[in-house]
């Protein structure tokens, strides 16, 4: 099973959607990061959506992953959308305060 899968690229909205699969920890964050970055540098989207629908657990490595991708998107002049966050994941997100960052948008 792929650790990250991508929805077909939306040319109109210039939106790339990465769906993460499995628990996010220090071990899995790196291959997830590499897969996302490869696609982002290829497509250069305006919006990077990261979907957490298939992520049962995330520790602080997930926050590092999100912040790193947000920085990449900021350099491209775009933003990051976080979607399908479970209650558990939302609590880690809230602890980090990253929802206050300008180019991060949270979707339910």
């Amino acid at each position, binding site marked *: 099973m792929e650790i990250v899968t991508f929805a077909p690229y939306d040319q109109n909205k210039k939106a790339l959607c990465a769906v993460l699969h499995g628990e996010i*920890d220090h071990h899995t964050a790196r291959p997830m990061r590499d897969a996302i970055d490869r696609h982002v540098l290829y497509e250069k989207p305006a919006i990077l959506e990261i979907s957490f629908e298939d992520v049962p657990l995330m*520790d602080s490595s997930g926050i590092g992953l999100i912040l790193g991708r947000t920085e990449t998107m900021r350099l491209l002049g775009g933003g990051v959308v976080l979607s399908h966050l479970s209650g*558990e994941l939302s609590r*880690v997100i809230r602890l980090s305060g990253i929802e206050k960052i300008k180019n991060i948008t949270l979707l339910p």
Partner: protein
Amino acid sequence: MKAQLINEMKVRLPAISENESVARSLVSAFSASLNPTVEELADLRCAVSEAVTNCIVHAYVHKKESDARFFHLTVRLYDEGTVCVEIADRGCGIEDVEKARQPFFTTGKPEERCGMGFLVMESFTDSCRVRSKVGAGTTVILKKKFSRD
């Protein structure tokens, strides 16, 4: 009345990142007999993940490849529904524990670390104690009481 120890597990694992998920699984399987809620167990797993990751990422940074790198995971269950998880390494230790525990303090910047580990451990458990000695290692003791019906 003093809490009675009802079960205890001790394992020694190599400090490699594969063992982050192994440690989480061991802790949840072992704690299951205390009937935690889904949320309580998820919180504990997340806190354990942070402590174990720190052993792997920080404790042995100065060690040579050939040196032994292990961490010890001890889980104790008490009859009042409390679980105590101890994560210990024999690594470099932490010079200033109080500073290390400050939210967003990190020495791991280039690797996308954000200094949230201790904040997660504190927020997702009832108590988080840290004992550390430079050159000798670090022990983190996490305690959580499960509500049970």
